[in-house]
């Protein structure tokens, strides 16, 4: 594998905040990932379809507008139905409405099946480190 992995990235639901993913995509590309960016207003179905088509290693869901609790549940299940149930799922942005304690929020998204959830303002560096670790752990597990 010449790239560090293929990532599908997009802004979920009725959300149009695209600056974060623009920055994130460029940082991820610069650090060696193959990034498929779906832009804004992406449905769960589009995420799954793109992940299958590109044989992606991970789906990165951005949700800034606060509707994460409404837009994000069910994506893991859709992945499973489509036969990519083990794909790495990250979610980040401003995933809930309002300034809330992070721990319970992280718990909610873990329960929805997201491998990692990020509080507001997560840096690309941190995402890159986590992705690198998680993907290489999977490679090792498979080896």
């Amino acid at each position, binding site marked *: 594998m010449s790239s560090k992995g293929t990532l599908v990235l997009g802004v979920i639901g009725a959300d149009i905040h695209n600056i974060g993913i623009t920055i994130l995509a*460029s940082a991820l590309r610069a650090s060696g990932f193959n990034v498929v960016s779906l832009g804004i207003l992406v449905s769960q179905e589009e995420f799954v379809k793109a992940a299958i088509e590109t044989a992606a290693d991970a789906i990165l869901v951005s949700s800034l507008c606060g509707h994460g609790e*409404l837009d994000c549940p069910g994506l893991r299940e859709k992945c499973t139905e489509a036969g990519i149930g083990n794909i790495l799922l990250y979610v980040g942005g401003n995933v809930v409405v309002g300034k809330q304690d992070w721990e319970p929020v992280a718990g909610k998204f873990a329960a929805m099946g997201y491998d990692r959830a990020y509080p507001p303002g997560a840096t690309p560096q941190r995402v890159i480190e986590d992705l690198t670790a998680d993907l290489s752990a999977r490679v090792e597990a498979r080896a």
Partner: protein
Amino acid sequence: MTLTNAVPTMARWDEDRFRRIRRGVLANWPTGAEVDLDEAAAYHRAMAVTKNTAWKLRQARTEGKTLVQPRAGVADIEQHIALLRRLRDAGADLLPTTVDSYTRECRYDDAERGLAQSRQAGRSLLNGFPAVNYGVGACRRIAEAVDAPLFARTAAPDCRLTHEIMYAGGYTSCTAGAIVFSLGYAKDYPLARAIESWQYSYRMMGAYHERGVTLSVEHYLPISTLVPQSISMACVILDSLIAAAQGVRDISLGIGQQCHLAQDAAALRAYPALGRHYLDAFGFNDVELSTVMSQWMGGFPSDEGQAFGVICMAAMAGYLGGVTYMISKSPHEAAGVPTTEANVHGLTASKMVLRMLADQKLAPITEIADEQAILEAETRAIVDRALELGDGDAAIGAIRAIEAGVIDVPFSPHRSNANQALPARDWRGAVRLAQFGGVPIPKEIREHHEAELAKRNAGRQPRAPWELLLADVNAISDGMLLPD
């Protein structure tokens, strides 16, 4: 909701076309049936004039005062009313109702689900007030519960039903713009359709005007992080021409704060004459103009003290720019929808600075004049080129200008946007263009941009424009104007 994909002209719609399309719009959700334009106009006429935005803005302009409007919207109407009352008590001059993201995208069934889940959870899972689902009667309850003009804060390529409901519900102004909202909020919604959808909304406002009720619009390019003010201003002017052509008679010309005092103030000072120039050229002499500034629309610092720093700088810029009104942010901006108290504090901080400065009657700072001359020349160059491309038609011209990259908005999610222009801050933090793409910036000004950017980069490792831009995008949220 029949909308053509043919290139629309700016020409005023005939009654027939409006009426025909209207049936489809109102049929889109059950509450649409509640709207009766004549009855609604009568409702507005019976309302206290102090609740009319156009009246309030005219008064502010006459008295040389700056008004402040926060953003606010929650799923539950009782909580929403309580929130607006608290903001009003804290000094809000204009009251907002921010509409949730589903409603913006005309996904009223999802909004309904969000409303139900919010009620179940006892807190708002929606990021705004789902006005369409609530309907006309509910909006009027809000209008009757507060004593200030109400603003419908929604934005998308198609807000027709929301406008029908909220204007009939006693709201007297909305955030608006076919071009600004296409470039700021849409991915593949065709520009031509967006213009037609907005022409519908504008025509509706015109219809109110013909019934003796002036409704207002606020035009501004929401994706303003590092978009040169002249590009924003050009979009706003084109949208204003399109609006005026349908009969809109009260327009606020907006910018987003970019935290450079002189440049922000210059944009605000340039606006009235520029706007007048183009509107008059098209014969829209009776359109009243105000200016408006949204406090920093980029990533906010998560530190609440730093957030107040940005908020107070905005107030300073608004004062120096003689702005008619300002949209305030809160110390919670980076985190999420603010609590009522945080929202109040963003408002009171802004008003405190505005009030203290107003008393001091300062002369404009010397740096403003230069920036103003630049912004005027740039904006004229873009608008003139667009009109030329449209053979004198603002609607056609706008579409062709975008397709030609004459209007090119950095970071726009819209597929028609050229993405060739790249901005950067110069050595003093003013926003310049590092790559011009197809934006027709006059030669001397181009050289000025280059020279000022060179001063910033002097003696440093050369960096790719894109790299520089990334650093600049994060600077304010990292607590500074220029990254180290």
